[in-house]
């Protein structure tokens, strides 16, 4: 039985880890390689790095980050942020990234998913989706939730799977930053409708929220940031609680 995965997410800007209490307000939380190493020692199952560097130096800083992480860390990791062409993905693969995550670039150019899957295999392609509930429906949002699209979340995720996504990272913008729990109903609905792994994101505030998301939606993995970065939840304690609740946990 494959284990449920616990994934800390590190937002990185100009080579430093940042995490805001929301998507606009950010504060510095340290060296990403050091943090990654710490998390691997704590038995995190995987790591996600989202690079939000906005300068033209971005690609260079991402490559340096990926190489430094791959040299020092012995668990899988995903890198996302500003990957818009095949050559971006290629250089990250060759620097040691296990997967790349694409978000807006896939919405703007869905064929990009097909191209990445054909070039590197589905297992390399994570499609990240930001969703928000507006007027009775879940809509795909871009730019950290600021721009609403006219695409329904469930439809987009099914399309991404058809095109060759190997995994979906779904962030509920309604729950993100609230620490009130994951969006279990939506996650269950999506999880039941796809045949690739689903990572839940947005809303983790305590250990019970992880138990709830796995129990209620059966997602493959749960991702969180600040609760891990600020030590509010320690991964070994979280995993022990999940084991007590009879989940397969590494």
């Amino acid at each position, binding site marked *: 039985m494959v284990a449920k995965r616990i994934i800390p997410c590190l937002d990185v800007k100009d080579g430093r880890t940042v995490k805001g209490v929301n998507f606009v307000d950010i504060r510095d939380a340290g060296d990403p390689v050091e943090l990654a190493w710490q998390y691997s020692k704590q038995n995190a199952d995987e790591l996600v790095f989202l690079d939000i560097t906005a300068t033209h130096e971005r690609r260079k800083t991402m490559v340096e980050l990926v190489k430094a992480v791959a040299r020092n860390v012995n668990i*899988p990791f995903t890198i996302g942020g500003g990957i818009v062409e095949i050559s971006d993905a290629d250089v990250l*693969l*060759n620097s040691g990234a*296990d997967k790349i995550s694409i978000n807006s670039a896939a919405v703007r150019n869905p064929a990009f998913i097909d191209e990445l899957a054909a070039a590197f295999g*589905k*297992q390399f392609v994570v499609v990240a989706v930001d969703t928000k509930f507006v007027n009775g429906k879940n809509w795909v949002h871009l730019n950290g939730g600021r721009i609403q699209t006219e695409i329904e979340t469930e439809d987009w995720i099914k399309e991404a799977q058809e095109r060759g996504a190997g995994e979906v990272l779904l962030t509920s913008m309604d729950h993100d930053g609230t620490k009130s729990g994951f969006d279990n109903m939506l996650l269950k609905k999506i999880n039941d409708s796809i045949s690739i792994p689903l990572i839940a994101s947005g809303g983790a505030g305590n250990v019970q929220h992880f138990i709830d998301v796995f129990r209620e939606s059966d997602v493959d993995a749960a991702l969180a940031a600040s609760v891990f970065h600020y030590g509010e939840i320690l991964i070994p304690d979280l995993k022990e609680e999940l084991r007590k609740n009879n989940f397969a946990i590494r």
Partner: protein
Amino acid sequence: MIGIINYGAGNIFSLTAALERHDIPYGMVNKPEDFDQYDRYIIPGVGHAGSAMHKLEETGLVPMIKGLTKPILGICVGMQLLTQFSEEGNSVLLGILPGKTLHFSDRSKLKVPHTGWNKVQIQREDALFDGIDDGTYFYFVHSFYVEYNTNFTSALSEYGIQFSAAVKQNNYYGVQFHPEKSGESGEKLLINFAQKIA
């Protein structure tokens, strides 16, 4: 010293980084003459088994690999290449192991790719797993698997069905999981291959 079969199928940065963290010396096997410099080998591999086999054939290394008497470890697609055939692209492979590489989705109701940490059940005592407990979790990411076969399956995992997590036949070894991404247990396995396999 380990010779890594260098045929361009997937990146080897993480593998060489893991070897470097443990001061395990390695070099690259690019042409048949290079085999003599090493006492053991790794066949890495990520991606499509058919295209990996095609790339391997283009290097001209296949006859040497088939005739090896020194230990060789295939990782992920590198292990699948040891089998006779893959349903991925209906490809004829090296044919060293008398078994096939099959697709999960026709036989397992679970999600594909099989992504994440799964328990490895050791079937036969082997120096590769020295100091590694039965039931240890390793990191997998694959859509195709080498069928379970008591003749060569040295460790199995379950994902809807039982499949080969590790294989061994004479000097030929393979692991479906990624030891370079499987935490300390994975690094232990790489150290065992470098130091304990004769």
